[in-house]
């Protein structure tokens, strides 16, 4: 409690005074915050634009889909960046409470609505309306959104979100009917750190973040983890996050 990290704002106020002594990491963290707000504004504008001027042809549908995909991707990248920075600073408080799973699903589907409609993808939600589980809602939202957006890129016509309990873990499964994960990724999803490849884009960073978030969820001796598989209910990639 004594070695508390000051919040970002205070750091900036102190450090900006002396230009020779700018703490670049905190400046970056604060800029990332601003970028995240800005990109959300942009995403909201895309939503409204889509609602008020629906696409007239396939090409316009494609453009809307691209707009949402890339803005979501930037947002998720920023969330990962901020999250990993916090993890590294050991300043990532986890606040676990019991939440309604359907609420989590509904909100994340709402974030991806433009892509779902323009790509004509059908979402199948398999979850008891009263099902609840224990998690840090904000962290989990970040993980689920990233996985959905990624699955939507590869899905053909179907996406499924489901929740079930298994051996004391709550499992959220996101499956698509795309071509599935490359074999190399299926081996060991807990250790994406080694395989973060800056040439392959953000996918691995997203999975690394997901694995870290899962790992922050603990109950007695149990820790959360993620699994990747191909096949599943829709024949494509299957991402599952297991939370104790």
């Amino acid at each position, binding site marked *: 409690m004594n070695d508390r990290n000051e919040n970002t704002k205070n750091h900036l106020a102190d450090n900006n005074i002396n230009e020779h002594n700018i703490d670049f990491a905190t400046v970056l963290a604060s800029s990332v915050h601003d970028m995240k707000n800005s990109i*959300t504004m942009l995403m909201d504008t895309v939503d*409204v634009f889509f609602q008020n001027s629906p696409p007239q042809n396939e090409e316009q549908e494609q453009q809307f889909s691209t707009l949402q995909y890339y803005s979501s991707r930037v947002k998720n990248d920023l969330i990962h960046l901020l999250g990993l920075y916090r993890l590294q600073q050991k300043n990532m408080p986890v606040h*676990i409470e019991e939440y309604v799973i359907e*609420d989590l699903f509904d909100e994340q589907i709402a*974030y991806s609505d433009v892509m779902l409609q323009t790509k004509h993808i059908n979402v199948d939600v398999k979850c008891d309306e009263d099902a*609840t589980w224990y998690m840090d809602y904000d962290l989990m939202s970040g993980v689920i959104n990233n996985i959905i957006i990624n699955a939507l890129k590869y899905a053909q016509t179907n996406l499924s979100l489901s929740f079930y309990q298994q051996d004391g873990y709550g499992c959220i499964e996101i499956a698509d009917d795309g071509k599935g994960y490359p074999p190399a990724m299926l081996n060991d999803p807990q250790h994406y750190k080694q395989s973060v490849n800056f040439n392959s884009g953000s996918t691995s960073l997203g999975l690394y973040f997901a694995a870290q978030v899962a790992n922050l969820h603990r*109950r007695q001796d149990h820790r959360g983890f993620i699994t990747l598989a191909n096949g599943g209910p829709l024949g494509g990639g299957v991402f599952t996050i297991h939370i104790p």
Partner: protein
Amino acid sequence: MTNIDLLHTYRKKRCLIIDDFPSMRTSVRRMLTQFGAQQVDTAATGEEAVNKCAVNSYDLILSDFNMGEAKTGQQILEELRHLNTLKNTALFVMITAETTRIKVIGTIEHEPDGYIAKPFTQKVLQKRLDKILIKKESLFPINQAIDDQEYEKALELCNTEIESGKKFKAWCKRTKSKILFQMERYDEGEQLLTDLLSERELDWALLELGKVYFKQERYREADEKFTYLIKKNENYLASYDWLAKSQEEQGNLKKSQEIIEEALAILPNSVLRHKKLGTLCQKNNDHQGAKKAYRQVIKHSTNSIHEKPDNYYTLARSLTLSVNANPDSRESKKDAEEAMKIIEKVNKKYPDDKEVVLQSTLMEAYVHRSQNNEELADAKIQKAHKMIKAMDDFSAEGLIPELGIERAKIELARGSVDVAANLLNYISDEHCDNPTIMDEIDTLFSSGALKVSKENTIKINKNGIAFFQDKNFNEAIITFTNALKLSPNHVGLNLNLVQTLLESVKEKEADKTREVEVLCRTHMKRVSHIPPNHRQYARFRMLSKRIDNRYKPTSESHE
């Protein structure tokens, strides 16, 4: 409820957005308009929001939590509830930035109906609002029962919801533990919480268990929980408040002060924490700290329900105490000057308040005395003497002890022995831990000038309570009424009388109820000034509600 129903609901709803950023206000306003709302107002500050709520009756309020130096969304919510300007069907949704939510939860009894983390899009806002609306409607019977203090019924409803495994079971478990705490059924609460915690470690349950341990005077175990929570999440402010409370109870006042200081470093605009800090500093003889804390109280309570003359007197008092402690220091002259300026300020602020003018005069005498200006002090006492003669009643509640003693001396001099005795009894009750004050009171009592009147307020009050417990309501009413003649503004006495009246009316004929209603309302009005942190505030609210519930049809027909 279908989505179409919900859209229809929003169309009719009157909405208010509170945010200090214009772009945020515009953006949320557009979102609400897009999904059907036709009446959307905005406010840039808490003050503006409170004013708008006084004029309009809103169905939905969306408020940012963090508004820089100004009032937080939480403070706005507390004020609205305190001022009774929120309908109990209104939704209050708190907009939080990530990781700030923990600063809100568990710190106060009033929780918002829901939260949404920034940033969000319109679609997500709508989803969240729909859920909050449905939740509020589903849980309305439980909340209603809690508001009416029908705790058994509320517990039963919670149990049904938990057993059915419905989606609000988590909320019900939490609420159940809070009700048990409220009812002081600590052993049951402990059982419930340890059972829950053996399954899973939940922060709220750890906090509640710590609170239960505290009440059971198991301080070591309580401290363990609070300390653990703070270590786990440094922003969990409720844990700081309880840890400080526990340390204070154990006599570790220095430690308690440090903990409150840490909480204030995280969220610097909490009036109640600054006030608490001031009290602790004073007890620790940290005059510098006390002065700072009370200056902050004035700063952060401006234009809020916490703004009151007392804030000025506590600061003036702490400045004077600082002078008395170090009369020869360089700062002492400056402190005395500041104290006089503070008195000037409060006089300007409340020019028509006789009580304020009197208090200020007494305070001036006190400051003059600290400067050894006995002549000036005596002149002020003379002036106060005249004022007291012209006044018929006064309240000892929350009086600054030094001023109360000054006043008791004046009452003695003019022969009002009973009034002086009551006043001193009251002060000695409230400040029994302050040796300087107790010494002075002892001196007065032993000087012979004061014969302790046997039937002082406190004793009469105790008798009244005994009658009440024996269900001898008539005797209780007579006793409380007599006691109130001596201390008309005593909060506990007024509430005791109201409660007795409400109980007694069950056994009387219906045609007398109007008379009882008028009496109840008169006595409630006398104590309506008490702030939410007052010991009797919860009871005051409960009784207000009971009166409103019982007399609704009559009072409306009389309007």
